């Protein structure tokens, strides 16, 4: 389902969130099941289905990452297929996670502090990396948005495919850093990292 069509907005990475929100309330108020309590059951069911489509579209389009993933999927690109990871990234993430485990296992204050300061150094480096990833993605997305593109994935040029592929890859790289960030934050708060995607 094309969530952009549901909202009747252009298929772009960047959107006007205020407009999206206004449009959401408009759409929702006309299809809200409560407005159709006295309608025939067929019309009521239809309103219910519409209402749930609108909710899903809004949830997807509201935040930049789910929105970008959706746009990519409409063109046949899936972040889940991005198997190639830049060399070193997985290794660094793994090392940082082991450092967290070390921090959590440490019983004396000194070892704990040492592990934490190493962890802070690692995460600062990763934070820089994350900013670079976000900046490149923003730049590619803006360049994409100002040009005209076909809606049919079969009509994408090689250049367009390359651009979308790169954006998908950047979103995946970001996911590794994000999962790690959740773990580090939990460790610092003394809570076990409970990861749910």
């Amino acid at each position, binding site marked *: 389902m094309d969530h952009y069509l549901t909202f009747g907005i252009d298929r772009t990475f960047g959107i006007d969130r205020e407009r999206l929100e206004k449009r959401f309330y408009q759409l929702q108020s006309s299809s809200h099941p409560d407005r159709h309590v006295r309608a025939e059951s067929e019309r009521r069911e239809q309103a219910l289905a519409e209402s749930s489509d609108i909710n899903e579209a809004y949830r997807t389009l509201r935040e930049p990452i789910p929105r970008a993933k959706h746009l990519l999927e409409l063109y046949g690109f*899936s*972040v*889940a*297929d*991005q*198997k190639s*990871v830049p060399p070193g*990234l*997985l*290794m660094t*993430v*793994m090392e940082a*996670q*082991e450092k967290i485990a070390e921090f959590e296992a440490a019983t004396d204050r000194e070892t704990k502090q040492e592990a934490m300061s190493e962890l802070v150094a690692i995460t600062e480096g990763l934070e820089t990396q994350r900013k670079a990833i976000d900046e490149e993605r923003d730049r590619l997305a803006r360049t994409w948005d100002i040009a005209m593109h076909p809606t049919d994935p079969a009509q994408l040029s090689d250049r367009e495919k390359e651009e979308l592929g790169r954006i998908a890859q950047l979103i*995946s790289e*970001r*996911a*590794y*850093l*994000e*999962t*790690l960030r959740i*773990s580090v934050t939990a460790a610092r708060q003394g809570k076990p*990292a409970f*990861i*749910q*995607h």
Partner: protein
Amino acid sequence: MAYSEKVIDHYQHPRNVGTLDPKDANVGTGLVGAPECGDVMRLQLKINPETGVIEDAKFKTFGCGSAIASSSFATEMIKGKTVDEAYAIKNTTIVQELNLPPVKIHCSVLAEDAIKAAIEDFKKKQATVPVESMA
């Protein structure tokens, strides 16, 4: 998210968590990641170069419950198997055994990828082992 009992058991009591010496010529290490959720999994296999049997398996996974359960289950399953048998394992076996919901199928794919990566690493190492040390 409702996990199956088997997933919860492996998540709460993961089997074979740990590390094998990555420098050992008989140890293959597979480090893989899930591109969408950012989970990382490291699977290590100690393989007998004469018989091709997997003698030991250790893993470390940082990610959701299903990813941890998938890798824990995978290590249990492949111990005692030959390299060829292990290489042929499909993620669908893990899905069925752990009763993973559709949204968590990628966790089993991750485990399959890790097994294959570890075996490939072992084979690459064996190919470069100097002849005199092969005994």
